[in-house]
């Protein structure tokens, strides 16, 4: 099954790497000559929204209060609707994968690796409220459509001092569109390789005091198969429906009420099976997933100094997996409910101090077939406060702290401090020290999940001993990989993080962002295989993996060569290592075996945590022809080799055959608008058709798409 030395894929990877290098050098050459071409078209601030920094964009995620992007003390990145539309990207996972320092990773769904953290350490919000429903820790970002959102805000580094648990690597906030025109409607349809189709409708209306907008989207695919000799599809077919609405009203000039609601439903079917001594066993699998949320917010501007927000949030996530085999039908169900009530008070004191203070209660419940008692619940009470100081024009200080009191984990304190220096020009220097934490999730504690397709089982830490014993009694344990009596309690994960970044204009065409980060993490929760089942799959549970660190450098260079052509280059250097492994190497206890000979490893042999690429980069080219209303977007993302798994028995990444070769994925989109009413879009995703069925089954090869959208207002 696993053959790293497959000559074909090796050559392809090499060709791709060379191609990427060639394209990069081409772009760099272009950068060098472009100022000469551009010098006659001095335009001042760019009109293209790719240059988000040039626009008076307001952001909310970093400080839980509206502030302009230029003045936000915590580095925030914003992707705006127009830009998302022109890229022709449909799902959040695909959008984020094109951004530097954000790598698409797949583990029970599509997630994003941020600052070297797995996707479970990034909090995902819609209009400031958390999206729930993680599987194996991953919140599948393919669930979230980006066609009807105003912007995506990305805050890197911990924000637990405002958001509590999960905001450890960063926070990604989707801000939904509000009604702006008296009457408006959009309709769009798109077809793509693999029978993938996307249909969406939206409508809006705004009167003096009330605005309403709704969106419906149907996203479906026939799926794809990369391994014909394996029964079933590599990527199963699915149908997804998403309905969302946003209503906002001004009840009085001082009191306004907003409501966001969302309902999403996904149905997936596949036939799976395996060959057993020449006999093919097949099963039909059907997986349904549904989630909804409702978020009312009341804001009351008491006077010029005081503003109060009352926020409520209710959401539910459920999955049902049905497996039909010759022996009958088995169903696995999971349901999670989340309720939150929060109040926040914003206070302006003079010209130099802005204080936000808030608190709330979160109650969560999980119901699943094989959770003891069928249902578990817990509660979190929290309070937070944030001070934004503006002592002088050039300096801004922000301090925040949050206290969480959890039914199961007691009290947790998360402080953070940030400072920003502003020059007269565009230069911004931002530095922060903060803490992040992630409480063990319901899944990590109480989950008892068996994927009927793949056959693996995940059991929560709290129930691990009994769950594994039950499996053993049923003859479902072939071999123990960890002593089952060693399972103990699980703690929240916590981090201490340092972030330093600088934004500056080299010339009026070139904007540079450079960021450095360091995260010291302890009690990191990782899945651990505790036993192998007779079907060759594993039983996993969750344990605190003591200490790791991630550190790196992220840089982004944005270059507006002419009014109509821009180029963005992103790069991340990453190091993510297990400190316990480093300690063991230091003690001389870690060995490797090569050509049948054992030898001691030293620090330089250790490649760090699996699935981390030391180098990764992005390229974005935006080109438009105003006279013909054409817009071209070419985006590339590449990553260097990364560890896949251990092959020489020491469980750490140290040998060359433990790496997946680096690769790049390029996407190109061509848009043509007709009288700003009609948008015709065509494109190619995965332009060079990179495929790796073994290690990157999520990439289905080259995909063509074409679509039409029509809007009236």
């Amino acid at each position: 099954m696993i053959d790293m030395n497959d000559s074909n894929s090796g050559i392809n990877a090499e060709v791709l790497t060379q191609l990427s290098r060639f394209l990069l050098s081409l772009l760099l050459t272009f950068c060098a000559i472009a100022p000469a071409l551009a010098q006659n078209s001095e335009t001042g601030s760019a009109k293209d929204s790719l240059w988000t920094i040039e626009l008076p964009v307001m952001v909310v995620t970093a400080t839980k209060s509206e502030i302009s992007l230029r003045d936000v003390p915590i580095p925030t990145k914003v992707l705006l609707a127009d830009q998302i539309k022109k890229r022709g990207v449909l799902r959040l996972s695909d959008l984020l994968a094109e951004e530097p320092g954000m790598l698409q990773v797949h583990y029970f769904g599509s997630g994003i690796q941020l600052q070297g953290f797995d996707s479970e350490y990034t909090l995902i919000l819609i209009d400031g409220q958390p999206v729930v429903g993680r599987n194996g820790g991953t919140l599948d970002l393919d669930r979230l459509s980006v066609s009807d959102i105003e912007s995506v805000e990305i805050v890197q580094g911990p924000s637990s001092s405002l958001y509590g648990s999960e905001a450890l690597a960063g926070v990604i906030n989707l801000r939904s569109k509000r009604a702006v025109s008296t009457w408006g409607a959009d309709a769009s349809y798109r077809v793509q390789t693999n029978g993938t189709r996307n249909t969406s409708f939206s409508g809006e209306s705004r009167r003096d005091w009330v605005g309403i907008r709704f969106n419906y989207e149907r996203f479906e695919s026939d799926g794809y198969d990369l391994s014909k000799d394996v029964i079933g599809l590599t990527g199963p077919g699915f149908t997804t429906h998403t309905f969302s609405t946003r209503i906002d009203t001004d009840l009085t000039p001082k009191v306004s009420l907003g409501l966001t609601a969302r309902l999403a439903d996904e149905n997936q079917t596949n036939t799976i099976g395996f060959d057993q001594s020449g006999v093919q066993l097949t099963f039909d699998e059907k997986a349904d997933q549904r989630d909804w949320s409702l978020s009312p917010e009341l804001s009351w501007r008491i006077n010029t100094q005081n503003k109060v927000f009352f926020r409520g949030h209710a959401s539910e996530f459920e999955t049902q997996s049905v497996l039909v085999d010759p022996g009958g039908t088995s169903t696995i169900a999971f349901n999670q409910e989340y309720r939150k009530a929060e109040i926040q008070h914003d206070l302006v004191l003079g010209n130099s101090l802005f204080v936000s203070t808030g608190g709330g209660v979160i109650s969560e419940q999980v119901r699943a077939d094989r959770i003891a008692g069928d249902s578990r619940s817990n509660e979190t009470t929290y309070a937070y406060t944030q001070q934004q100081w503006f002592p002088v024009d050039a300096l801004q200080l922000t301090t925040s702290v949050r206290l969480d009191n959890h039914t199961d984990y007691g009290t947790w304190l998360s402080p953070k401090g940030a400072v920003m220096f502003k020059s007269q020009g565009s230069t911004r220097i931002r530095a922060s020290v903060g803490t992040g934490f992630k409480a063990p999730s319901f899944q990590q504690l109480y989950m008892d999940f068996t994927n009927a397709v793949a056959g693996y089982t995940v059991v929560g830490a709290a129930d691990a001993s009994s769950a594994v014993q039950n499996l053993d009694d049923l003859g479902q344990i072939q071999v123990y990989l960890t002593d089952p009596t060693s399972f103990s309690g699980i703690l929240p994960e916590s981090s201490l993080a340092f972030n330093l970044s600088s934004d500056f204009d080299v010339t009026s065409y070139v904007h540079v962002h450079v960021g450095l980060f360091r995260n010291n993490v302890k009690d990191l929760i990782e899945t651990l295989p505790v036993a192998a089942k007779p079907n060759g799959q594993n039983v996993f549970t969750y344990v605190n993996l003591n200490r790791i660190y991630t550190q790196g450098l992220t840089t982004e260079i944005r270059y507006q060569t002419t009014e109509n052509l821009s180029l963005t280059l992103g790069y991340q250097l990453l190091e993510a290592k297990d400190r316990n492994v480093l300690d063991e190497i230091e003690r001389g206890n870690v060995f490797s075996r090569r050509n049948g000979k054992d030898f001691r490893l030293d620090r330089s042999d250790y490649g760090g945590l699996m699935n981390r690429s030391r180098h990764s980069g992005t390229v974005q080219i935006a080109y438009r022809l105003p006279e013909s209303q054409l817009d071209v977007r070419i985006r590339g993302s590449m990553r260097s080799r990364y560890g896949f798994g251990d092959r020489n028995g020491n469980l750490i990444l140290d040998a060359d055959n433990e790496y997946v070769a680096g690769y790049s994925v390029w996407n190109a989109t061509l848009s043509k608008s007709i009288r700003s009413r009609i948008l015709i879009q065509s494109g190619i995703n995965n332009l060079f058709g990179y495929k790796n069925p073994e290690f990157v089954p999520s990439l289905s090869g080259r995909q063509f798409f074409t679509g039409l959208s029509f809007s009236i207002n």
Partner: protein
Amino acid sequence: MDSTMFKSLPTLTIAILLSFMFSACDSSTSVDPGEDVVSQRVLELPADPITGFAPDGRPIGAGIFTYYSLRSNEVLTQADSSSTAWDIAFKGTTIIVNGGNSGPGNGAAQVINGVFSDVMAAPEGGWTQDGENGKAIPVGSGNGWYNYEPATNAITPIPGRVLMIRTADGRFAKISMINYYKGLPEVPAPDSQSRYVTFDYVFQPDGSKSFE
């Protein structure tokens, strides 16, 4: 080149081979200080191999240990399982030694970290026997001699783990586990036949702890 070296080389080879043969054929349990250490590779020893599959897909084995004598370098029959003739026995990834609750002998074991060829002597202390609280060679991934890699479903010997064995008659051996599959694949394929253990061992017949 020195021509005497060529002359003496065949003689030396014969002498080594003879010493191997003698020691390999020696089934006595007495201590004889005159003997040289025995160095052997045991190839693809069946350790309760899979014989078939149950209707639900579970592999079926006979559920029995394969008993081995390090002293005589041979596989013993099931009938010998209650005797002191065997030193070590294999069933899947589980290894037992002839002592404690596994057998009537004086066998014991311990797992140490080190490079196999660099381990020049058996430790003075630290010997344990199979018992209620576990095996002398701990079972489970990472605990004893192997690691299990979930990404590839492979059982791989942990590099740098040396199994120190006290035989049923109180003499000493060291073992390096080489492979768990037929054909000794570096990385097993999905159709690799598991539960065939290959290991190298050095046995000191003279009763001392030295492997030199």
